[in-house]
């Protein structure tokens, strides 16, 4: 369906250079893909592709290292922050980021992420909170909502037995080594744009050597939620945001300026 391109036309949106030109394995409508795209857009924009090292994690994003056109490795489940610490400590001039799901970061990896924040490791984490374990087929995550039915909480999450949703952006903001900790959502265009802004600032936090930065992104899992992509985004907006308020929980003074004046 290629059509003539008129002279005066200009491209106002296209796939970012830092995304490899292959189809992803993500389910239709899964916003993991959206997160990938905006991260790649920022890598392009900041011109750091050739100095970036991605530490992928274990979850549906396990193949992220195939999708980003940057040097990449694959950590053990939950250990991406530790692995990224190893990478960064011996390569301080590189830009190092982890991409982790909520099972990976909040459950098995809670200790490691707490400690990179406590140490103020100069790395960045993009944290995909979809309130469930996607890869393994929809079990309860520490981020699942009270009452949420999953394949391992068939009667709905009962706080008496399974505890309460973990608000990681808030928790990590308490630690002194954290330079930037915010929560955004991917449920519509406006929020995607805001998420992208936050990612830019988080990346800059590392480039400025300010410490640990993390952006929590509320994301969808249509398949395991048993919803259509459209219903999923509605659920993010109406069910998740009330439990996971969007906002800035820690912003180092050096970054305040950036958050203010718009796009750059």
């Amino acid at each position, binding site marked *: 369906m290629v059509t003539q391109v008129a002279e005066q036309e200009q491209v106002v949106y296209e796939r970012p250079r830092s995304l490899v030109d292959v189809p992803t394995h993500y389910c239709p409508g899964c916003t993991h893909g959206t997160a990938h795209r905006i991260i790649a857009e920022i890598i392009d924009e900041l011109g750091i*592709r*050739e*100095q*970036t*090292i991605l*530490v*992928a994690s274990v979850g549906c994003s*396990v*193949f992220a*290292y*195939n999708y980003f*056109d*940057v*040097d*990449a*490795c*694959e*950590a*053990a489940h939950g*250990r991406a922050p*530790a*692995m*990224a*610490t*190893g*990478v*960064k*400590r*011996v*390569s301080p001039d*590189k830009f190092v980021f982890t991409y982790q799901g909520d099972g990976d970061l909040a459950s098995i990896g809670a*200790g*490691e992420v707490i*400690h990179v924040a406590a140490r103020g490791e100069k790395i960045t984490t993009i944290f995909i909170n979809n309130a469930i374990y996607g890869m393994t087929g929809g079990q309860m995550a520490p981020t699942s909502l009270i009452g949420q039915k999953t394949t391992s909480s068939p009667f709905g999450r009962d706080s008496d037995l399974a505890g309460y949703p973990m608000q990681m952006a808030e928790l990590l903001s308490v630690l002194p080594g954290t330079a930037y900790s915010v929560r955004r959502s991917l449920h519509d265009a406006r929020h995607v744009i805001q998420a992208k802004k936050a990612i830019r600032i988080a990346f800059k936090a590392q480039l400025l050597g300010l410490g640990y930065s993390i952006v929590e992104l509320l994301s969808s899992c249509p398949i395991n939620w048993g919803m259509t992509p459209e219903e999923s985004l509605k659920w993010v907006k109406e069910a998740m945001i009330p439990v996971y308020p969007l906002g800035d929980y820690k912003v180092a003074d050096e970054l305040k300026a950036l958050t203010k004046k718009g796009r750059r």
Partner: protein
Amino acid sequence: MPKQLLKGNIAIAEAAIRAGCEAYFGYPITPQTELLEHMSRRMIELDRVFLQAESEVAAVNMVYGAAVTGARAMTSSSSPGISLMQEGFSYIAGSEVPAVVVDIMRGGPGLGNIQPSQGDYNQVTKSAGHGDFHPIVLAPSNIQEAIDLTVLAFDLAEKYRTLVFMVADGAIGQMMEPAELPPMRPLQDRRPEWALTGAHSREKNKISSIYMGAEELEAFNLKLQEKLALIERIEIRYDEQYIDGAELVIVAFGTAARVAQSATMLMREAGLPVGLFRPITLWPFPERQLAQIAKKAKGILVVEMNAGQMLHDVRAAVGPDIPVAFLGRMGGSIPMPDEVEERARALLAQMREPENYLLQESGNGHPSR
């Protein structure tokens, strides 16, 4: 370099530094801690990377991270910590990056105690993690050897892009002996081309242990097994003493081998036909070499500071035609030379009246005492 009186843990740490170790990640645990402590001072002085990790799980994954960038990285721990690193070891093996691990073994199982032990033999030689792989395992029996093997460990790790263990027990970690340190090597000036250094004017590099398709993963495993087979062919190391004419051959490694050596010397002086075979690489195990020696001997005595773990490899190597006895101490007890001598003399006697022999042989791997 002149000889110095050096503590095992510190000698190993300093040797690693001189071998060009760029990054150390570890977590305190007795009887290994002085190694980490020495690193905490020297690595910082040398402006290299030292980090006390929050746990052994984190430490091994930090080493994994440093290793994928091609940096010479290492960690050290003791038995319980080594158990916690198993998943990490398996990932390192699965992605074929070089890394060095020091295990200063203590008494187990569980928290056990902190006394010298060789109870991790199976864990490091047979299964340092899930899946099919073996790290190279080096076992020094004195401080000088610990130093030399530490340097070798880094070279082998890099040569084969593999995990290399150096295992010693708490006694070697804690004792002081005169030894000579190697000269300081210059750090490597650039990272290997497979390493993650940023996709700058080249294709991106990917390092992972995932092969989703059964075919791909099998292909990888076959490649890995070929590498291991090569190592088995050319990297076997061992030491022999008084083997000529030895009717009874004592097989031991590490501190147990030192003890056996004292006993052997004394017995030889007393004119008894006893010899010592000491594996230096526990994996690959010097199977054929031992088998050769066994052909000429009448009996074997395996001495270990565990319930008889290497014993199985010795049995497999020498076969059923020659009796294999076992003397094992556990829980931090170190066998004493006279103990070994006593047992050896008894065995020599029995060899003269073989009929009693079977009675005397210890069961499969369980200490006879």
